[in-house]
């Protein structure tokens, strides 16, 4: 799995995993989320447009990242969930925990509109 990280105006950071989020890939994403939080970059958008499989390990990595980001007054917001991934979010109740958006741009924009 590859992982692309980029910043938008140093305010919001985007992580774009690509491929299948099984346990090894989830660990890489959790590390990336941790590094951003360690650097105080706690406004993060995870662009899931190129993720077609999400194991529970991926859910756990996102939840761990979300908890850390919110402690730093930030948030982890998700964008462009495939139908299969959305199903897994709903089955596990994670759709109630994360804010999700149709596109990465809308997710990034949401930080400007209402914070935190």
């Amino acid at each position, binding site marked *: 799995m590859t992982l692309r990280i980029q910043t938008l105006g140093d305010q919001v950071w985007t992580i774009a995993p690509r491929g*299948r989020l*099984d*346990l*090894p890939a989830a660990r890489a994403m959790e590390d990336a989320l941790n590094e951003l939080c360690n650097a105080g970059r706690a406004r993060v958008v995870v662009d899931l447009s190129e993720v077609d*499989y999400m*194991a*529970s*390990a991926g*859910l*756990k990595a996102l*939840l*761990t990242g*979300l*908890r850390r980001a*919110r402690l730093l007054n930030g948030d982890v917001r998700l964008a462009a969930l495939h139908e*299969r991934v959305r199903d*897994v979010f709903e*089955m*596990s*109740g994670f759709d*109630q*925990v994360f804010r999700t958006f149709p596109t990465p741009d809308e997710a990034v924009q949401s930080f400007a509109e209402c914070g935190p």
Partner: protein
Amino acid sequence: MDQVTSAPGTGDFAQAELTVPADVRYLVIIRRFIHEAAQVLGAATKSIDDLVQAADELATNAILHGYRGQLGWIEVAVRPAGGDLLVILRDQAPPFDPRLVPEPDLSLPLERRPVGGLGVYLSRILTDEIRYHALPAGGNEVILVKRGVRAAK
């Protein structure tokens, strides 16, 4: 040409098997194997995706919490049973019955939500039945059942 009731090699005696080391780097092989074998056996795409994820979750658990870094193997079999499709997972790790894992409380607030047990929970939702046998010589056998997913021949 005579009408056949099932394609050769896809009847109830057909079974595809795979053995891989108990290492998370092999999870991708397990997923691909189940996907390909289930396709050969005529399962519907959505059902294949469900079985693949259920097996991935339980194999991940066996490697992480069963073997705990010890050397070992994960055996995977894909077997038809009439219109049903079965995925069988075997390991030689200490006994673990996934049916006994309590369901996570999804209504808990974020701070108190436990992250354990989610994989087993998903594997239950994604399948119609999970059977479990402690193997006589040690180890576990878990059978994931998806009903009525094979196209009638």
